């Protein structure tokens, strides 16, 4: 039984009279500690996968399991608790609170969960121990994304979800971010799921799930993932 499993998951949006099937029988599984990449073109349904897996949206039908819990049947309150304790989110546009320092942004997350990592320690892990008291406006994009990663991992989540984490970054900084995410899975055994349209990340992943038309069209397991530092795109 994989750590994360999607079984026949559908998601139908109603836009006026038009019915949009964002997920149309999605099936895949991710083992614990794996770095998984969900890849596909725009409109393939990968963001919907992220939303549902992250507990910010609910499926129309199907079964989703994360660890021992079914999240497809959770109500809003349970989902909030799930996001609070089990999921770490890294956004494409960082979504840091502009009015909080780097340290405080991390604390914002760590203070609400049961078993947090020390905020300063989390920032140290992402190499920002000397920028603790800087506000997001005073940091570069890559630094901001690293703060966002620190914020996500400070919660000690079972699952780290990343939405185009390098999408707004240049090549070099993007690579640093990927190294950090790979380290999370490899060294600390955290399950990391990265949503991207960029095929270049596939070689560093343990598992690559290709989605198209709301379905997982291919699931590749990579026995020997490359180190993120060797990435070229």
């Amino acid at each position, binding site marked *: 039984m994989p750590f994360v499993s999607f079984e026949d998951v559908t998601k139908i949006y109603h836009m006026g009279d038009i019915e949009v099937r964002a997920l149309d029988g999605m099936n895949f599984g991710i083992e614990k500690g794996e770095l998984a990449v969900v890849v596909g073109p725009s409109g393939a349904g990968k*963001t919907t996968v*992220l*939303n549902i897996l*992250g507990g*910010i*949206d609910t499926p129309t039908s199907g079964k989703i399991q994360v660890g021992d819990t079914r999240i497809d049947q959770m109500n809003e*309150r349970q989902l*909030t*608790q*799930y*996001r*609070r*304790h089990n*999921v770490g*989110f890294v*956004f*494409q*546009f960082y*979504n840091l*609170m*502009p*009015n*909080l*320092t780097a340290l*405080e942004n991390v*604390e*914002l*997350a760590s*203070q*609400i*969960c049961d078993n947090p990592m020390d905020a300063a320690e989390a920032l140290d892990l992402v190499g920002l121990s000397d920028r603790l008291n800087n*506000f*997001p*406006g*005073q940091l570069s994009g890559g630094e901001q994304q690293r703060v966002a990663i620190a*914020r996500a991992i400070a919660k000690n989540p079972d699952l780290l979800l990343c*939405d185009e984490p390098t999408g707004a970054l240049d090549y070099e900084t993007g690579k640093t971010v990927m190294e950090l995410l790979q380290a999370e899975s490899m060294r600390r055994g955290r399950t990391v799921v990265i949503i991207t349209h960029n095929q270049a990340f596939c070689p560093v992943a343990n598992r690559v799930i290709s989605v198209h038309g709301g379905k997982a069209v291919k699931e590749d397991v990579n026995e020997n993932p490359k180190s993120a530092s060797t990435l070229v795109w």
Partner: protein
Amino acid sequence: MISMKSAFRKEVLRAVTGSFGRFLAIAAIVALGCGFYAGLRMTGPDMRYAGDQYLAGTHFYDLDVASTAGISDSMLDDIRDISGVEGVQATKSSDVMAQIGENQLAARVESMDFSEAENSEQDGVFSVSSDNNDYLNRPMLASGRWPTSDDECVISADRIMSTPVNLGDEVTLLYGDDNFDNTFQTKTLRVVGTIHSPEFMSSIGMGTTSLGDGTIEQIILVNPSVFSDSYPNTQAYVKVAGAQNSYSDSDAYDATIQPVQDALESKTDAWTDDLRQQFEDQVREQAQSQMEEQQQQALQQLTAQGLPLEQAQAALQTQMQTQQADVQAQIDAQVDSFNPDIYVLDRSHNYGVSSFKSDSERVDHIASIFPLVFFLVAALVSLTSMTRMVDSERPLIGTLKALGYTKRAITMKYVFYAALASCIGAAVGILTLTQFFPWTICRAYAIIYSVPQTPIPLPVDAGLAWLSAGLGIGITLLATWAAVRSTLRESPATLIVPKAPAPGKQIWLERFHKLWARMSFSWKVTWRNVFRYKRRMAMTVVGIAGCTALLLTGFGLHDAIWDIIDRQFGDILTYNVVVQTHDNLDDAALLGVRDQIQDTGDGTDIVAAYQRNMQASSPDHDAVSVVTYVPTENSDMSQAFSLRNHQTRQQISVDDNSVVLTEKAARSLGVSPGDTITIYDLNAIGDPVGDGMQLTVTDVAEYYVNNAVFVGEDAWRDATGDYAHTNTFFSKVTNDQEQRDTLTDDLHANTDVSTVSYIDETVDTYRTMLSSVNTIVVVLVVSAALLAFIVLYDITKINVEERRREIASLKVLGFVPREVDAYIFREIGILVLIGTILGLFLGIWLEGFVVTSAEVDYVMFSREIHALSYVWAILVTIGFAALVMFSMRGELKKVDMVESLKSVD
């Protein structure tokens, strides 16, 4: 510009419907600001307008010629001959103590030709029409009918001081001045109707008199033949042609009146001479006939004794000559002491007219400062709302700019949007509130004045309406222009890139390291957010401060007014009945009254005193009327009046040499202990006479209703050369109603007693009178609520809109709804608290201002605001805030977490 017109119009329309909440907020605050300003400013003029309509419609006199020696027919002819005089009405009047139903009170009896009333017609609320230009001061029948015989009368329907009078009640004229017995032919009348009279429009006082406690409490209109034939007309009311075409407050009115007034005044000397001549002729004639009669008798006596006629005449000749000289001397002495006074009085001498006018001016005064806070908040709301709107449309502005639209064209969209919102707001606010405020406030004053209410729609003063609309719209447009201008200065390239949220920075609070370190993480966030948007902080703080200030003013006003009753009638006046007697009674008579109070009424703490209505003045200040109290018969004044120093709370006793002035009088006269005041006796029309007497004030005492001066027995003797003679008793009598009724009946039966009044009845009167102020309290509270709602709604809305992304991120991070609410609302909560605290200070000032300007001449409002009022002001403000935040929780709930994934737009 022209080519984009239709697209432009569509764009503006879409902006309105797209952000209806913001549009509404701007419109509402402008409506409140403009409406408050225009409405309050128009209330005073509206009141005066109604008064004017009433006076014009009832053909109220413009000038009143009053004479202490009567108005002769030749004087009336003279008056009629003056050019500009349109109508003249001669009236007999006399002040009496009257028994009406159960009550004994001071009343003015006036003659009236009821056939004129029968021939007139009431049309509209204000007007009584008649063909006769000489029919003035036309009363309106409120109930019953006009009298048809000499034993019938009508009385005022506007009394609130005493229990209601029923049709059919008997009126007995009891006594009056020295000439009372020669004044009336009929002294028992029956009430057949009640009236509203423009001459007596205030139900608090219908004028002053030397009888009773100095206030005329009722008017009795009777046929002229109720008065004796020998009793002359006392008044000639004069209507000036063309005067009613102009507003009675205007210069035009004064200009119309002035020539007639001058002409009348120029005649008073001649009239005085005529009256004196008439008097002299009359006296001489009387003396002559008396002398002739005596001579005739003497002659008869002499001839009866047998003396021949010629001898007798010769014998009397010398006697006659000496007698002639004596009589002449007597006549001269009488004529010398006969000094008729003739006054030419304008409307301002009418108690009702002048107090109505000063009440309306009091409203003007309040109106001058109140609306400021609304305009300030309107400016801030527009500024923040429009800034937010412009910020959210930066990419669009950038695109338009890149496409080559001019700054002016782009600015136009926002200016047009703001103009549309503020114009709608101004129009709605002005149209509704210029009706609502004057109507409500006039209605409150209708408890006191018989001036009919102008039916809605009330006239709207175009000048004021435009001024207020101009201010409201101008402020909004200026704020909008300022918001757009700063954005437009940026280049299209930077505009298309979304504006970064306001960057975080250290706040001054962090310099207090210890404090900051102790603060929990979420409080740090809150504090930083508080200082993140200065403009919004200002708007919230000012808006909430305004709300609290209005509430505190409302509650404080309520305190100020009800304290009068509690303090004056609870703490200060400790007696429960006042019995007034005639002046100069002998000791036995006074003892009789005292015994009645003691025996029939179980009266204790009886204080004998001399009471007199006078006027006090000091250099450089307007005179005030005062009631002078002098303890007599070694009474201890403190048994009836518990006087104390307002600040120190120290008791003040009225010793033999004390002169204790009450607080408001001292303030009006600008005197403090050690200063000297002069007090004067009053003549028939309430003007001071004589040289007055000098008194040196020894203490100033807390006192709320009426002005009074308490003069010690020796101090009074030193000033007047005479000991004061008892004419009043204060006492605490039984509370048993039955026993009281017996006491009242007994005292009324005693011909030495003039009035009996129980303090409970006075308290009730004041309660009724002051309850009108509650209306104003309600208006203030409602306005405060609206202000708070608009500001908080707007600020919360903007907060939520601008932080959708932050809110979405918080939700994704797993914040439970309560925590998300706290993130947004705690900050508003702090601003509300700051605003509330500032509002308390502002409120203390505003309340002081309103209380001082709302204060009536003879009443001192309490200056203290109760602790509970502060508590209520705070609680209600916070309550409003909580309500808004509670209702905005839905907005937060609606923020979709998926927004956190979107690109920054």
